[in-house]
């Protein structure tokens, strides 16, 4: 079947990738993108690199769209006429489709704080979703660089670190007990908070914003933070208004099946606006895989499974010097660049989707492996089913992160040599199991290996006789097997290994 005239609502990463893949797989009909933002498609995930000055805004621009793809930037779709297969836009234009793809992304959830100006009306208060938002922060004058980031999810943490690098005086306010509390347990969260403090970020956890007034944010404990700029990173939700108005089935996002179809077979949804049981919202990888999968289905291109089955979730914190990744699991209700799961005051983010495994393979009993190395800022917690990762958090372990991410993405088992795999600790060398003579074998009675071998040499032939001679094994009895082994070796003159 031919997809005919393809209309894409959205001009972000998912829309761009889809148009490119559609062309790649030989789609012959027309393709039109309606982008609400004035800019050409850009790489939203890199917004924090604009904040810290690593990249100029122009560097975020994605490669030019394939020839023949029409891009209408600054055009917001307002209504779908499913009967006539038409989309009406805010500039009065009307666009016909045979196939409609919704890639409307997500929109920030803004907290209700007394005194907060309406977003867009002041450069001093802004969300961080678009290039325009980032440029608003960049316009802050050099002598007004006290910045408060509200929301300690991925986006909030990344933004706070980026602004600290750029020389801002940054405070991070987070409702949860530690940053990224949707992803990290208390141990890892404490480590991360320490690392952020080390970057110069003033971290306030367990706090909500109570009021905003002219460059000052008051917290619920009465503390007042100077905020020349207030950055709202309080989560994001799928942009579903258009689909909802068109009567399409919507949950947290626009509901899609394995064909990435909505309940109207001519209308599809991909990326942050879509809700598929196998994909976590707010991540680039599922968006790209959905774009590829849909392009293949619409063009009848070669096999890659019968359709889209989900993406193994990999969540990376993009802060230079802090290696942090979460594999599997599912961040609840997160959407947006880097999944701004931060929850600030009044944010409604997170309603809907529950914690759970994106892989749906969490049945059966788990194996949980942990590494806690606070002195070196390293932490890992892996939940495995059948040797495969179903949920994992790793911090400060770059090599293990790279290796485990690869295994996770391919659904491969984790090697049995866990110490070597996670920490690079070599297996015990030959001879390492040989007890030195002065090692205490029986702690209860303070008997050394030497004393036991001497007793054997003096004629003790079994555990009872060694016990009579040395008292070894007569306490808790925990050393009995070791003493028996030593007796046996004394008889045969063998060594421990």
């Amino acid at each position: 079947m031919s997809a005919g005239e393809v209309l894409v609502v959205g001009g972000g990463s998912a829309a761009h990738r889809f148009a490119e893949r559609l062309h790649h797989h030989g789609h012959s009909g027309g393709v039109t993108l309606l982008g609400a933002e004035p800019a050409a498609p850009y790489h939203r995930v890199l917004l924090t690199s604009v904040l810290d000055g690593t990249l100029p805004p122009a560097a975020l621009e994605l490669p030019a769209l394939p020839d023949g793809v029409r891009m209408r930037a600054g055009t917001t779709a307002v209504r779908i006429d499913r009967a006539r297969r038409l989309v009406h836009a805010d500039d009065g234009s009307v666009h016909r489709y045979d196939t409609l793809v919704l890639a409307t992304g997500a929109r920030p959830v803004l907290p209700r704080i007394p005194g907060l100006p309406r977003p867009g009306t002041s450069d001093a208060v802004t969300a961080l979703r678009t290039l325009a938002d980032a440029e608003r922060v960049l316009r802050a004058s050099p002598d007004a660089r006290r910045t408060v980031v509200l929301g300690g999810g991925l986006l909030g943490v990344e933004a706070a670190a980026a602004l600290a690098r750029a020389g801002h005086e940054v405070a991070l306010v987070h409702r949860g007990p530690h940053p990224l509390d949707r992803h990290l347990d208390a141990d890892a969260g404490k480590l991360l908070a320490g690392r952020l403090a080390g970057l110069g970020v003033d971290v306030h956890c367990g706090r909500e914003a109570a009021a905003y007034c002219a460059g000052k944010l008051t917290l619920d404990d009465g503390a007042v933070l100077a905020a020349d700029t207030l950055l709202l990173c309080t989560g994001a939700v799928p942009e579903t208004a258009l689909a909802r108005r068109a009567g399409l089935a919507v949950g947290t996002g626009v509901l899609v099946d394995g064909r990435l179809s909505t309940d109207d077979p001519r209308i599809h949804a991909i990326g942050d606006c879509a809700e598929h049981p196998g994909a976590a919202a707010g991540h680039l990888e599922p968006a790209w895989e959905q774009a590829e999968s849909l392009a293949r289905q619409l063009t009848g291109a070669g096999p890659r499974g019968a359709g889209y089955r989900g993406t193994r979730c990999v969540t990376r914190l993009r802060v230079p010097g802090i290696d942090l990744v979460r594999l599997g699991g599912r961040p609840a209700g997160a959407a947006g660049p880097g999944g701004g799961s931060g929850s600030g005051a009044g944010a409604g983010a997170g309603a809907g989707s529950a914690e759970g495994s994106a892989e749906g393979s969490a049945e059966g009993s788990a194996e949980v492996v942990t590494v806690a190395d606070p002195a070196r800022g390293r932490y890992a917690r892996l939940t495995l089913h059948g040797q495969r990762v179903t949920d994992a958090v790793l911090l400060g372990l770059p090599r293990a992160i790279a290796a485990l991410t690869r295994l996770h993405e391919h659904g491969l088992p984790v090697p049995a040599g866990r110490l070597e795999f996670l920490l690079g600790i070599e297996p015990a060398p030959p001879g390492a199991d040989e007890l030195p003579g002065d090692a205490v074998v029986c702690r209860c009675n303070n008997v050394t290996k030497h004393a036991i071998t001497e007793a054997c040499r003096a004629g003790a032939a079994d555990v009872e006789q060694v016990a009579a001679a040395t008292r070894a094994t007569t306490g808790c009895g925990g050393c009995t097997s070791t003493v028996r082994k030593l007796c046996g070796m004394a008889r045969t003159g063998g060594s421990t290994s």
Partner: protein
Amino acid sequence: MTGKTRTLVVAGHGMAGHRLVEELRTLDTAGAWRVVVLAEEPHAAYDRVALSSYLDGRSAAELGLPAPGLASDPRVELRLATAAASIDRAARTVTTTAGDTVGYDALVLATGSKPFVPPVPGHELTGCFTYRTLTDLDAIREAAVPGRPGVVIGGGLLGLEAANALRLLGMEPHVVELAPRLMPVQVDAAGGGVLGRRVEDRGLRVHCGVATASVQAGPDGRARAVVLADGTELEAAVVVFSAGVRPRDELAGPAGLDRGERGGFLVDGLCRTADERIWAVGECAAVSGRCYGLAAPGYRMAESVARQLCGLGGDPFGEADMSTRLKLLGVEVASFGDAHAGTDGALELSRLDEARGTYAKLVLGSDCRTLLGGILVGDAAAYGELQPFVGRALPSAGHRLLAAAG
């Protein structure tokens, strides 16, 4: 040595006092010492560590600690059911609870511990017990009502033993622990979780993270129920307090001997009090201020003092090893070395296996190589292969422990 026989009085015949006497009998080949042992209990020293087996078929005689030839040894006089009541340091005499006065050249205090009973309302009711002596166990056996619930206050090692004892007596045991997990001294949160699930599988009802508010009396004036701080009421035909121990140091004050900050006879590394003729060993001794509630450190103290009494010079008592391995309600638990990673720069590695119900944790030094300690729950088979390596390079058993089940 003057050749004249001197008198050693040992106040207490628990495990430490017993070891002191046995060690002295071995070392004192010249017969320099006559020993008077004042044993408060009606039994000679027995294996208190294995106390619970008394309710599982072992007799008092079988629990007795081996002392070959003690009864016929003319050098040793063992006075049962007789405790030291007071010390007159100037006269160098001990007055016993029987009213006798015994002179000493040397005095070793080995009075042990007494159970700590939290002063909750109702703690003195009939039907409330402690769990430390054979006499306690006789009383619990007498009071047990098969098929009825019994409540143990305290989820440490002894509390779980007491719960098992109630189970052996046919009762339905509950355990109440103030800490958020069972055996908080020996295991960490994850290990405590596995332990809790395993013992619950064996019929134990576990209530952690909650204080005991009171013991309620029934119409007959006996303990009827235990009320928890959260309002829960647990029916209880028998209540056993097992909430830790306190050193038996009541002789110290009247005798003018110093006590440690948290109780116990204050002694130095050689177990000497400030009086050169008086030592303290075992659980009643606050060695450099700290008391040790395990048999092994008590044995080391006893051996050290016996050597000093024989002029052989004792080893100063340094860091005590608190390693423990036991099987409770069919669940193996071991804890050794720096189990809670208190060492600077230590790192912890753990593996929990839900299918097998096992948990293993290793603590390594900052070189990521030296084994500092560990915790094993559900399967402690690796204890023998790991524990002697504390302070040394991690052996292959440690690597195997964290690998997948084979």
